């Protein structure tokens, strides 16, 4: 040992595939749909440890919904779910272009991950509170938050509900159970736990949800959330959206290429499971289970949504620089919209024609809303929020020094 032993070397995890390589997901273990059973909502976390190493799936390759977790949604609900996801995708595509046209400074889309937030929203009740990241706008779309308001915020125009103060897409809507997004990664995960604790302290029946990306699980706030959620058995559902990539770094840089993110719950005695994030039915079923568990006082659940970020990280980013262009297509869990569409067709409740028609209708709607928003203004033209407003809301009452500064600024 010691001087006799070989020199050490640093292990730096590498993704399976870089630009130019051929993607290979054969190592990625995917259980069959229906394979993972549905425990009772008061299950002992220790008794369901294996769920953190498997994946809850409902839709099989044939587009059938199978197993314990199937059957929670009506056909109308499924069709609505499909519409939500299609709307989100269309909205994203339009706003992505609008950013390229200089109408806003920045945009982030959900391509490939639409099921996660759209399906989850359906498992919640009015009064519950989400603490989302920038990649859960489906929570708003699926709860009928006005698209026009979203666009006004993206354009930072005079009708922006946040008065131009905040970056595009960092939405906030208390009324829609959508906590103000900060843009700092991880910080809000622990706040969701505090909100849930507050509900418990108040003898209320509301629950909250926390959201974090795979890369951001590395942030320390992740730990704080786990410690407080487990200690106080907070009625919270903690969601990790594992879309395989942070910006240019793959999920291995956040977890060393071993274990699963869900398994992080075990050291805290938190019920932990993984779900097929591209399977609308699975996400919804799991969300419902966890929400019920929280609401009935059985404590927190940690959910790892296994999905894939099919687009760039943001409009500032070109993924071709760090990963294979073929990777998205090779992703074994498929596309969430395509899968739900096939399921509906399979059960005779949808068709290619109806789909094409829905697509056209949605595009029409989005375009007409966009025109309305642009008629108010965009970041570079039209009616803008007032400069005077920048001094408001730092405190409830403006203190003397800010009044002086506003005067100095001439507003």
């Amino acid at each position, binding site marked *: 040992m010691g001087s006799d032993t070989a020199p050490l070397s640093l292990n730096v995890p590498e993704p399976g595939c870089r630009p130019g390589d051929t993607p290979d997901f054969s190592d990625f273990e995917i259980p069959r749909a229906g394979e993972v059973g549905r425990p009772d909502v008061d299950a002992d976390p220790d008794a369901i440890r294996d769920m953190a190493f498997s994946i809850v799936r409902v839709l099989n390759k044939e587009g059938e919904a199978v197993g314990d977790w199937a059957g929670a949604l009506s056909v109308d609900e499924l069709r609505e779910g499909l519409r939500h996801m299609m709307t989100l995708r269309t909205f994203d595509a339009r706003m992505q272009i609008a950013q390229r046209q200089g109408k806003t400074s920045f945009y982030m889309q959900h391509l490939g991950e639409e099921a996660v937030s759209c399906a989850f929203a359906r498992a919640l009740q009015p009064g519950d509170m989400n603490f989302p990241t920038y990649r859960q706008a489906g929570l708003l779309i699926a709860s009928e938050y006005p698209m026009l308001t979203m666009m006004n915020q993206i354009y930072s125009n005079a009708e922006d509900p946040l008065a131009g103060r905040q970056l595009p897409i960092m939405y906030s809507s208390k009324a829609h159970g959508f906590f103000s997004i900060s843009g700092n990664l991880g910080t809000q995960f622990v*706040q969701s736990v505090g909100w849930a604790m507050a509900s418990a302290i108040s003898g209320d029946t509301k629950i909250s949800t926390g959201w974090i990306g795979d890369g951001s699980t590395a942030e320390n706030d992740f730990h704080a959330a786990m410690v407080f959620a487990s200690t106080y058995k907070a009625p919270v559902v903690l969601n990790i959206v594992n879309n395989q990539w942070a910006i240019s770094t793959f999920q291995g840089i956040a977890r060393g290429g071993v274990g699963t993110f869900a398994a992080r719950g075990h050291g805290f005695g938190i019920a932990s499971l993984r779900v097929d994030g591209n399977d609308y039915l699975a996400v919804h079923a799991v969300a419902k289970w966890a929400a019920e568990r929280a609401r009935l006082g059985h404590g927190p659940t940690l959910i790892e949504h296994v999905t894939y970020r099919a687009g760039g990280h943001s409009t500032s980013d070109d993924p071709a620089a760090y990963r294979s262009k073929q990777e998205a297509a090779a992703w074994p869990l498929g596309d969430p919209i395509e899968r739900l569409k096939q399921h509906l067709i399979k059960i005779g409740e949808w068709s290619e024609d109806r789909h094409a028609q829905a697509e056209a209708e949605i595009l029409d709607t989005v375009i007409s809303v966009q025109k309305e928003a642009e008629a108010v203004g965009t970041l570079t033209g039209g009616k803008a929020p007032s400069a005077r407003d920048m001094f408001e809301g730092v405190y409830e009452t403006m203190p003397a020094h800010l009044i002086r500064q506003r005067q100095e600024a001439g507003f």
Partner: protein
Amino acid sequence: MAQMTMIEAIREAHDVAMAADDKVVVFGEDVGFFGGVFRCTAGLQEKYGKSRCFDAPINESGIVGTAIGMAAYGLKPVIEIQFADYVYPAYDQIVSEAARLRHRSNGDFTCPLVIRMPTGGGIFGGQTHSQSPEAIFTHVSGLKVVIPSNPRDAKGLLLAAIADPDPVIFLEPKRLYNGPFDGHHDKPIESWKKHPQGNVPDGDEIVPLGKAHIQREGADVTVLAYGTMVYVAEAAAKETGVDAEVIDLRTLMPLDLDTIVESVKKTGRCVVVHEATRTSGFGGELMSLVQEACFYHLEAPMIRVTGWDTPYPHAQEWEYFPGPGRVGEALRKVMKD
């Protein structure tokens, strides 16, 4: 009115606020069963139950982070950081989240939150139990920063902080917890029990945020001080015979600039005293504000008496601490300049 220590006054402020409003919840490391390492929350868990006063895991960032979530829900968390020296892990939650929530959400969500912490030196606590980090909070838009110097103010200001709709950093000079320390560490310890400012009104009377207190009137020089330095400055004035007007700022943000400016215009001289390290300390801000507002009234350069720009030492505590000797010297010098 009752005569009490600063610890008792802080405890009573909690008690009054918790009795009046069941949205007020109190937590932090060791604050529940044990009542806090300085006993500022003793008895509250027994009286109000474990869901309104409880022990927290040792995670300052998590304490603030969960409190922000609670405040957004509609509660009024009053949390304790065991020593101000341990607030840094929570700095991100305070700066990026608590301070900005109202502004970035355009009032959709707010963060009424009080973060209490013992601050300052004079107890041989070395570098990890002696720091004065107020300046890193006064620099952050959206925070209020309060530092009482006596039991009466401690109770009234804490009640005001709890009633405030925005996040308040509440710094408690630990060397003043039990008595009005004037920096003469070799003299017998005084107690609040006989001091007029240890006489604390009953009930829920607040001391408003943003109002300074003239601790000692004087004509020749204005001394701007807060926390423990208020008593040091008073002692220095007495001992040098310089007719100093000692202003206890009480709230650093928002600052009572009117009181300061009025005094400096009267005296024409100004000395600023704080325990924190000098460079980029709050003293720099104070001197800048005074020169901006009173340039033509100043008869001599302002002087800062502060902690040195070193970590807070253990054995050399009394060479580090700005005592009455050093403040007195500054008073003499500013009168000569």
